[in-house]
């Protein structure tokens, strides 16, 4: 990780201690040090600003502001003062003052790339898009780097988006932005994917879908191309892309969106020639079903490192078919069974909980108990101890048990218990938590314990109880040997 510290290392050794005091939250000492410094060097502007920051942080807003303005009025051009003032104005929620600051700096040092850059950012904070556009071009004139040019283009698009007058947007801002990008394309100066995406966005907003598609399919289009081309009006989603990118959930969603869009439009593939520039396109439920079966078969054939995507996609397809009252949904299988199989494969991974949660609504209420029981059967637990609690023998079993417990909570089974039931549940959860700590003996102090979630869940059940009965039921009794943060 990069080191923290939003203030750059000051060159001046004298200021260093004040920065340190401020970073440590010791505002009193910061102010004191600044005062000491100012007695000896009364023109050390930065020290004044740092003192102002200290004052601001101790609630003396007005005094801080007055002091800061003493420096601001002199229109400083040293890095330290500028940065310190920026921090101060930010903390005072006065971003417009930062623009004034850098406008002055840029007037005094018109060739400074850094000040122009800060000015652009300052305008961005207050949403002054037109000024951003100008600042971007000014930057580009100083140093012709692509990002600066495209910041200007982007500002034009922002002006178009925020324009009250739609006509102005279509006849002025967007066409100008389009011409600016076209110039770069002609001069073969396009460098980044983001620039092409911006171009695509502009064309889309102008309603120029054919041109947009051409851009994306042409030499400028990169890996993002299929995502873009399927989003626009024709909605065709070709297959080859799906196979090349492993386990991208977005692709499955787009595939389904496009499929049903085409079905609703009664689209039929052309008699001759390719369906689309990229390849085959699916437009019927039968094709989707067979595609899904293919993907699953590929996963099943693997010995290890199964991807979760295809299995979840199958559940998603069932949901969509059911929403459209398609009887074909049944051909894909019974959700309870499919989710059970998913648990068998991936239940020892924490993500199994969040993965399955989204499909719990595919179960009918009277399937809930059966579902949880089925899952629990697949959790390897040791024989119950004298307190009747059966415990897992290793971390994988623990994670599986945790998964089932959390899913049970999601289904509302914990809420449905009466007071006695809930108290019993808490006892069980605590037992699991305590027991699980043994697996985490080698965990560093900064890591989560394997069984931490049990503790959290017990706390939640306590809260449930309190909400229902108004009693705190021993919630505040500390758990022994808990190192949970």
């Amino acid at each position, binding site marked *: *990780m*990069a*080191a*923290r*510290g*939003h203030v750059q*290392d000051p060159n001046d050794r004298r200021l260093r201690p004040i920065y340190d005091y401020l*970073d*440590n939250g010791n505002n009193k000492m910061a102010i004191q040090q600044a005062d000491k410094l100012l007695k000896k060097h009364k023109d050390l502007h930065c020290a004044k600003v740092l003192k102002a920051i200290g004052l601001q942080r101790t609630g003396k807003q007005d005094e801080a502001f007055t002091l800061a303005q003493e420096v601001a009025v002199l229109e400083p051009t040293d890095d330290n003062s500028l940065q310190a003032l920026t921090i101060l104005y*930010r903390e005072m929620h006065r971003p417009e003052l930062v623009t004034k600051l850098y406008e002055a700096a840029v007037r005094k040092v018109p060739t400074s790339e850094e000040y122009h850059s800060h000015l652009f*950012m300052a305008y961005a904070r207050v949403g002054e898009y037109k000024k951003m556009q100008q600042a971007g071009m000014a930057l580009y004139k100083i140093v012709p780097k692509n*990002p600066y040019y495209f*910041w200007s283009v982007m500002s034009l698009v922002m002006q178009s988006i925020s324009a009250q007058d739609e006509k102005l947007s279509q006849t002025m801002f967007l066409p100008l932005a389009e011409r600016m990008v076209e110039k770069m394309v002609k001069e073969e100066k396009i460098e*980044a*994917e*983001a620039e092409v995406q911006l171009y695509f966005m502009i064309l889309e907003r102008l309603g120029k879908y054919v041109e947009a598609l051409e851009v994306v399919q042409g030499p400028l289009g990169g890996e993002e191309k299929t995502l873009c081309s399927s989003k626009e009006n024709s909605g065709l989603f070709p297959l080859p892309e799906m196979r090349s990118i492993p386990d991208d*959930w977005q692709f499955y969603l787009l595939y389904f969106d496009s499929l049903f869009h085409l079905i609703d439009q009664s689209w039929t593939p052309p008699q001759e020639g390719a369906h689309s520039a990229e390849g085959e396109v699916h437009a019927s439920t039968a094709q989707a079903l067979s595609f899904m079966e293919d993907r699953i078969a590929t996963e099943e054939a693997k010995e290890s490192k199964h991807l979760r995507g295809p299995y*979840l996609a199958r559940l*998603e397809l069932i949901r969509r078919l059911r929403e459209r009252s398609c009887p074909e949904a049944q051909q894909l299988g019974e959700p309870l069974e499919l989710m059970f199989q998913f648990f068998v494969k991936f239940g020892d*991974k*924490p*993500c199994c*909980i*969040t*993965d399955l*949660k*989204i499909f719990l609504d595919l179960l009918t209420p009277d399937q809930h108990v059966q579902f949880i029981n089925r899952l629990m059967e697949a959790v390897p637990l040791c024989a119950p101890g004298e307190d009747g609690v059966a415990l897992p023998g290793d971390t994988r079993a623990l994670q599986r048990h945790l998964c089932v417990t959390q899913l049970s909570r999601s289904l509302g089974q914990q809420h449905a218990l009466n007071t006695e039931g809930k108290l019993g549940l808490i006892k069980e959860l605590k037992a699991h938590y305590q027991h699980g700590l043994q697996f985490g003996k080698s965990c*560093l102090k*900064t*890591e*989560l314990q394997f069984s931490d979630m049990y503790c959290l869940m017990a706390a939640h059940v306590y809260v449930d109880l309190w909400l229902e009965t108004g009693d705190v039921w021993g919630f505040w009794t500390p758990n022994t040997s808990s190192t949970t*943060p």
Partner: protein
Amino acid sequence: VFSSHSNLDPLTETYGIPFYLQYLAHWPEYFIVAEAPGGELMGYIMGKAEGSVAREEWHGHVTALSVAPEFRRLGLAAKLMEMLEEISERKGGFFVDLFVRVSNQVAVNMYKQLGYSVYRTVIEYYSANNGEPDEDAYDMRKALSRDTEKKSIIPLPHPVRPEDIE
């Protein structure tokens, strides 16, 4: 990053909004986020490219990488690193580097497994926030294809201070 759990991990640095925005503005292609089917943020990586081409120091840099606890053991960190390395290759970088706390054994081992080695130690790189001592960092590197002789990863014989970093 503030509503997901990856930044609640004590070993993930949390910077100010301007820091993140600067990265989004300057190096958007290096800002990658992984989202779970339910919409949860699984993890993210932030990076940049810098350094002199003439001195063969043009390189990709991993500024921050974090995976939420619920989504660990899925190979996500490796996948995000791979994507960043690929982008750095496309940009013609000589190597990829990153800073990691010397005490963060889990991370150091993970990067070693991904092909990184310790290039140098940076003394007191990480400043502590509550009177505790600052912590050293390892500067770890992985050579890319442009560095044919793998010169960029020959370790330095002595540690450096933060001021000495380019």
